[in-house]
């Protein structure tokens, strides 16, 4: 029992680190995008202000039980994703509950929150929620195709599905990273990564600027607070997953921050350069070049 409590305490501490890191990242990205647009942008702690603001709203509406539970599902999905992954390789406390399952568990758990939030938003009865969810689900599933292939290429290369083992295999310098030892799989994974991070050009389902559409417009006050918190955690967790899979993992929090930040910047830069895809365009994009790269990755990795 003590073991479990100790682990829970460690995980909570990890969560705090990752959450704050995630919030700062969101703030920073907003600034970067604003600068590219020629604006100054909000302060870096704007996400904190947003959460405090939404938390202190005095009114809240509910369309029903599922609507009420939707954000809970969503944030359980985000935190759970983080909790089932080792964050820092070799650290005694940043292992979370990664003993519960391997990378298959982690990638399936991504959908837990998505599905729960979708159910909640759909109960609102607002057609725009449903349209936003449809777009999000459709695009995310398409992005999974190259990702699945990349994952299988890694499984073929390392003959393991354990994230810890995959990270362990990449230790000993940049030459051992999967980025170098399996560049095609990394390419496939990174192409999928663009879709999974939901940045432009793959952010039509959020459509943050012009049309109020999708779950974030229906949820408000404390629900939105939960969702905003989740977004920072979820963002960070996905970055950590990709770092672990392709870029050698991290042996300290510092390395983790550097690597994930660099990874995020790839997506952010692509986002400010490329215009947004419509949903069917993004799906078509995933099932062409990324799919081909993914198949190539598997073939090469299985050949070895």
């Amino acid at each position, binding site marked *: 029992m003590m073991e479990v409590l100790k682990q829970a305490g460690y995980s909570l501490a990890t969560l705090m680190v990752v959450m704050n890191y995630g919030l700062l990242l969101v703030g920073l990205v907003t600034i970067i995008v604003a600068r590219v647009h020629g604006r100054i942008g909000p302060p870096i702690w704007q996400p904190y202000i947003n959460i405090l603001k939404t938390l202190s709203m005095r009114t809240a*509406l509910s369309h029903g039980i599922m609507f*009420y539970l939707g954000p809970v599902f969503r944030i359980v999905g985000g935190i759970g994703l983080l909790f089932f992954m080792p964050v820092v390789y070799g650290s005694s406390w940043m292992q979370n509950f990664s003993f*519960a*399952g391997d990378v298959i568990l982690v990638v399936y758990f991504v*959908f837990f929150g998505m599905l729960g939030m979708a159910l909640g938003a*759909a109960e609102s009865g607002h057609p725009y929620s449903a349209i936003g969810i449809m777009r999000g*689900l459709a695009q995310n599933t398409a992005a999974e195709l190259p990702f699945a292939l990349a994952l299988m290429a890694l499984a073929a290369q390392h003959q*393991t599905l354990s994230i810890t083992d995959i990270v362990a295999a990449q230790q000993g310098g940049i030459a051992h990273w999967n980025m170098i030892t399996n560049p095609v799989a990394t390419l496939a994974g990174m192409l999928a990564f663009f879709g999974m991070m939901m940045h432009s050009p793959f952010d039509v389902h959020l459509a943050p600027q012009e049309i109020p559409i999708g779950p974030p417009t229906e949820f408000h006050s404390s629900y939105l607070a939960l969702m905003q918190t989740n977004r920072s955690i979820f963002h960070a967790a996905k970055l950590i997953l990709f770092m672990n899979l392709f870029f050698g993992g991290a042996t300290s929090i510092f390395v983790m921050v550097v690597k994930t930040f660099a990874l995020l910047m790839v997506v952010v830069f692509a986002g400010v350069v490329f215009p947004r895809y419509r949903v*069917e365009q993004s799906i078509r994009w995933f099932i062409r070049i990324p799919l081909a790269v993914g198949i190539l990755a598997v073939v090469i990795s299985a050949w070895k």
Partner: protein
Amino acid sequence: MVTPIYIFIIALGIAFLLPLLERAKKGAAETVFLAALSGIALISWHWLFSLLTGRCEIGEIFTAGFRPPFSINLRVGMEEAVFTSAINLATLAGAVYLIRELSGRGTKSMMLYLLFVMGMNGMVLTRDIFNLFVFMEITGIASYALVALRLDTKGLTAGFKYAIAGSLASIFMLLGIIVIYMITGTLNIDSIASRMVSFSGTAAAGFVAPAVFMLVFAFMIEMKQFPANGWALDVYDSAAPGISAMISAGSAGAALFAIYKILPIAGEGWYMAAAITGSVTFVAANLIGLKQERAGRLLGYSSIGQMGLLLTVVSLGLKGSLPSWQLIAVGLFINHLLAKAGLFWLTGITGEDRIRNWGVIARRPFLLMMMGLFMAALSGFPPFPAFWSKWTLVMSMFSGGMKVWVVFILLGSLFEVAYLFRWFGYAVRGGVEDGESGDIVKGTPEKTAVIFFGAALLTAVAYYMMGKMIDNSTLMLMPLVGAAGLLLFERFDPRVRGIVSLAAVLYYGYMIIPGLSGMPLFFNSFFLGGGAIMLLATLHRRTASRGFYPMLLLMIGSLSALALSSTSLQFFYAWELMTFSSYILVLRGKKAMKPALLYMVFSAAGAYLVMAGFASAGGTVFGGAGDGIAGMSGSLQMLPFILLAAGFLVKVAGMGLHVWAPGAYAEAEDDSSAIISSILSKAGVLGFVFLFIKAGTAFTGSTYLYSTIGWIGAITAFFGALYAAMQEDAKKLLAWSSIGQVGYMILGLAAMNQIGWVAALYHSVSHFMFKGLLFLAVAGVVYRTGTRNMYEMGGLIKRMPMSFISVMIGIIALSGVPPLTGFGGKWLLYNALIERGWYLQAALAFFSSTVAFLYCFRLVHAIFLGQAKPAFRKIKEAPRSLIAAQYILIMAIMMFSMKPSILIKPIMGIVGERFDTLLTWQANTLYSPFGYWNGFAVMMVVCALFAILLVILLLISPKPQKVKQFNIVFAAERPETPETTHYAWKFFTPYERAFSGILKPAATRFWNAVGEWAEAVAAMSRHIYSGNTGAYVVQIFIFGILLFILSRGGLS
């Protein structure tokens, strides 16, 4: 013993006495007529009984005290006794059926009938070739007159055509007999054969061949061989159905027996020609039957086909190529005799010739049941005699190296199944197209009794044959006994029947399961346990549901028998029972006519593949250690493996062979759909399990074959999910989902390693739970809303919260999202595939499972979330028994999700030592060579997180203001009719657009084309039967030429 001469004495004597009797006392003639027929029948039965019990020897009767060649002699051996007994029984029953018509036409019709019966007896009994000719003429002339008895134009012209064809046959026969007599100096059949041989090489030999040709040609016409059979079709079509029944059942049998006697005279060279003619006729008649719309003519095609098949069997038997051919022939003959007569009799009762209008008998459950029984018998379903005969036939043919024959015979049988069940579909579901709405079925008590008698007799013969043919027949009989027992409860309230069925399943399970182990234990627990839960769900039925519970019990029982089977025959028997019972369950759906037919045709084709597979393995794939497929040398194993795998792929709806499945799953009644898709779909999985166990991986080509099956599984999983996402109909969505889910199981099994098999079996159970749950929940929704279109629903969460919870749990489990059971199946599957090195398949399976999220969300959103329609604002929660069954399943899902080991450990035990052990348990963690999974820990973490975060939300926002469902605003405006804003129709349009390239229904188009081609060929071939007598005569001559060419080939 009573000498068979009395048969002729009674017939002739009474025939001449009848007019006198009628004058003496009105109505006396009928009594005496029936008594005479009974007397004739009794004589033949007495012989049969005495011969069977060994109380007498074969009877040789010499007329006038001389021996042949100076006298005509009759023989009553076992064969003759069987045939005369059967013919006399049928004609007696036929007379009872026809008695009102016959007496209405006066004594002359009864006289004709007696002569008809006498002629047929003579054809069977006589050993004199000229006498045979005479009896054929008597039978023929009596039947022309009987056919024309209606005195309408159709009957008269048909009688005339019959007479013309008969005369042609007579001319050739007489010429043949004259020449043969000239050469051999005898008319005795037995001596002719022996003398003919001695003429080879002499000058007389030049005459032998033409004489024999004329003789055989004449008999072939009598046997109504293709294409010289247009006249016969017109006869079946136009005569009173009672008369057609007798001609089809009786005189065709007599003609068959006659040719059986004649062929040895013709010599061995003719056997092959006759067999080819017979099988061509079988295929052609059944092919043309596909386009037939009239009941009488359709039965005519079927009769001609059956005669062709019998001719093939007899010829090949005489040739020595078919061991135990007598059994095959007698089984086929009796089956044909009773079932065909029964169907003709039914046609007479309904008085409806267009099969589209056969809906008239839908409201007569007894007649419908009889029809179903005769259909099952004619199509060769167990336990009817044709089933055993066809099995033996195919087994013998394969072991004799006659593979091509098997192909033709199975093809012909498939055509027959198609048109017979098309007709049956109209009867059950067709309604009446343009007839009056009143009840036009005009049965009389004696007619109904005769039909029942025919069915009872058929069943008795079936029971007898089953006892002889199958091992452990008592056990195999259990499903049928259970179903028959339930028929006794048909008049009770449906709930009583449901409870009785449930009790029967539970008791049966209690009796057999403790004695089982391994795969039989797994599948029996699965089928019976699952069946019981699903039976519980059916208890909400308030409608009469006639025949539902017997068929359901039969299906569950046959699935259990399938899992218990230890020989190929037992397996195939159970397989066919399952097919038939599930077909009826599908057909019960309101719009199920076409889907049910498609299901039947595909199932039959699959079953024939399975049968051919068993045959090619020597009949003992699933039984006999070291025998069958496992004992065959490497390269020989490929054929049975491919055939069996193809058959099972049809059942699991593997991509390309799946076109029957969406309709069958979706159009069955709502609770049946749940059963069919959650339980029945695993029958194919069971087939694969048995096959893979027996076949192993050591044979030539196994790597490619398993890999192909694996790819088919993966592709099926993908397309199943993709199509499911595009459906508007909730049940179609679930149907496509089931197709896809079974694909994963096949993929897992084909990996042929421990993890793959555990994955497949685990996923079977898991799929049963969540898919049963989803189908039952949707059944409740459809029951309340009256629609299956999801876009017509919406917002039902407020009215049906219990059903909503079911669907939500169901989709989470289905999608494979942790922490529910679905994840375990996925985790195991990927590990298995990685172990096997099937990375691409694993990636495709992974992608499929993400596509599954799409339809999962769509299902729950379109039905329960969004805006409600005004019509459904007041509907109630689903019926209690449906909800109860769902919550049992939910409890099971929760239990297995919490502790996956309680399901996986036993499954690992069942998979056993067949493969290298790859999976290990350490406390709650399951380890594979690649990864690990602790379901318990995942569940705990998720539950704890959920509880903590929910509490936080409750603390921050304890009482949000509740708003009504319609209280929505967008762009600062409130829609006047919010229900129109429910976004559900064509939900995934962008996906559809992006994947438009691969969403074309190629398989459906292909199979439609196959169907259209078959129908077009049938329609074209049908034109040769123009109804023109001259054309028929030309056809007879063309047939003669073809037969001549064929016989030349045969003789050389």
